[in-house]
């Protein structure tokens, strides 16, 4: 299929439809409302379900209901809306239901602003809602990658029976890039024999997260923990940039800031400074093992983010605190520029800016 020029938000919507994400609930919030606008027209064409709910609280519980009934249901929102979904996501994780939630992150805390941010990193990768759970988190760095990750997100949600978060930012959502929709093949999924889709010919199925018996609750907690360990073993994704040549600095960045870092690395090379990039594509699980390997030759690592350094602790853990980990970031919707990253690296190398 030929390439088409699409806004990230619309491309995410189309990719989800093609991945069989035919049940979509939403509540408008900038900068992701184009997903809902696109699907309000697209879902009727493909016989899917589109519903604008009364709040993100309701929307996330609609996800719970539909996912519990065995339907591939998903939603999109942006930071404040995602906060409102956290309770239901905790229930969804606890009830072991599959769903995909896309967060086109805006600035915060509070109402914040509508510009791009990476300030929801901790919320996304460390659980976010109450209780002992994790979400599988994908962070696309281009519109094309967002399109590739959507089918994977749906597949993994079903395979692990766990919520999957696609963590974009305002830039990924609003930017237009050429995209190509490719066919994706996945191994067959197990039947959803746990779904509440009618008890004809079987015992009733119950979707539930209430465990009054501590032994039963602990069983659930340990089953979930084992699931997250399996994710760590099998689902880590990352991209390396310029790691095939000598480097003394390792930048770590995801999403939009990773692209900024690539330009910065090219500029540094012009000044004969060897820098490389590790770009986590999965934020949970974090590519810790590879980070440790890649950090061996470097003087220091630098985490570059559109936040106040939320990923730094994962980088420090990844390198087991054996090397200095510096941070450079911008906040408030400002995006670090390649020039700023170059200056920061030079400063830390003692080479002046």
């Amino acid at each position, binding site marked *: 299929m030929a390439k088409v020029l699409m806004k990230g938000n619309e491309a995410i919507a189309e990719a989800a439809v093609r991945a069989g994400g035919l049940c979509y609930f939403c509540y408008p919030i900038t900068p992701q409302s184009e997903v809902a606008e696109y699907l309000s027209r697209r879902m009727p064409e493909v016989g899917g379900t589109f519903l604008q709910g009364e709040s993100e609280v309701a929307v996330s519980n609609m996800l719970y209901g539909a996912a519990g009934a065995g339907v591939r249901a998903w939603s999109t929102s942006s930071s404040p809306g995602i906060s409102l979904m956290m309770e239901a996501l905790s229930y969804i994780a606890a009830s072991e239901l599959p769903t995909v939630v896309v967060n086109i992150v805006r600035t915060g805390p509070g109402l914040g602003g509508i510009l791009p941010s990476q300030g929801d990193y901790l919320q996304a990768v460390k659980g976010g809602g109450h209780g002992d759970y994790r979400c599988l988190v994908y962070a696309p760095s281009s519109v094309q990658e967002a399109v590739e990750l959507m089918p994977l997100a749906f597949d993994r949600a079903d395979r692990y029976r766990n919520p999957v978060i696609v963590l974009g930012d305002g830039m990924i959502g609003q930017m237009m890039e*050429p995209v190509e929709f490719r066919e994706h093949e996945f191994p067959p999924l197990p039947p959803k024999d746990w779904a509440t889709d009618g008890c004809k010919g079987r015992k009733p199925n119950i979707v539930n997260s209430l465990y009054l018996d501590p032994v039963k609750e602990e069983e659930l907690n340990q089953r979930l923990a084992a699931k997250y360990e399996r994710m760590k073993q099998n689902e880590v994704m990352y991209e390396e940039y310029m790691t095939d040549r000598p480097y003394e600095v390792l930048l770590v960045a995801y999403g939009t800031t990773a692209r900024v870092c690539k330009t910065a690395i090219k500029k540094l090379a012009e000044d004969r400074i060897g820098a490389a990039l590790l770009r986590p594509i999965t934020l949970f699980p974090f590519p810790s093992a590879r980070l440790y390997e890649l950090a061996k030759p470097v003087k220091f690592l630098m985490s570059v983010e559109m936040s106040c350094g939320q990923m730094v602790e994962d980088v420090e853990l990844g390198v087991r605190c054996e090397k200095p980990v510096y941070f450079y970031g911008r906040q408030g919707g400002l995006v670090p520029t390649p020039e700023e990253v170059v200056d920061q690296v030079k400063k830390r190398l003692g080479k002046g800016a």
Partner: protein
Amino acid sequence: MQTEVVFAGFGGQGVMLAGMVLAETGMNLDKEVVWLPSYGPEMRGGTANCTVIIADEPIASPIILHPRDAAVMNRPSLEKFCPSLRPGGFAVVNKSLIPVDPEREDITVVNVEANKIAIEAGSGKAANMVMLGAYVGATEVVPFDALVETAKKVLQKKPKLVPVNMKCLDQGYGIGQAARA
């Protein structure tokens, strides 16, 4: 080779569409492209701008602090963007609405009476296409026939608008070419 251009103006002047046509033309030529808008309340009638990047290699940072070129349709846009252009770049300036000139000696300035030309062509709303034509005429960042083909495709849902838009593209292109010479 990477070219960056900011299209900027009031909301409603069609700068987003102009950028989109350019980006899509680049895509149709198998180039790497990014179209990055300013978004939010700015869409509703304030100032609007979009950045278009066209490159031969994959585009790393979509955020360009110092674009090479700009096409500015109102005075605030000129004041905002022209000082940050890289030396050797191009500034297409809508003289219908901007009484001043960029205070730069190191860039090529293309003056276009975009609104006047568009009104004479049949629709003031097509001033954006005059700007786009002039930009491509001056920079040859994409071949003009590829631009025309894409513009026709983009506008096909409103066939009535095609002739006037084509006329505007064409006239703008002529002015751009003349400035190049």
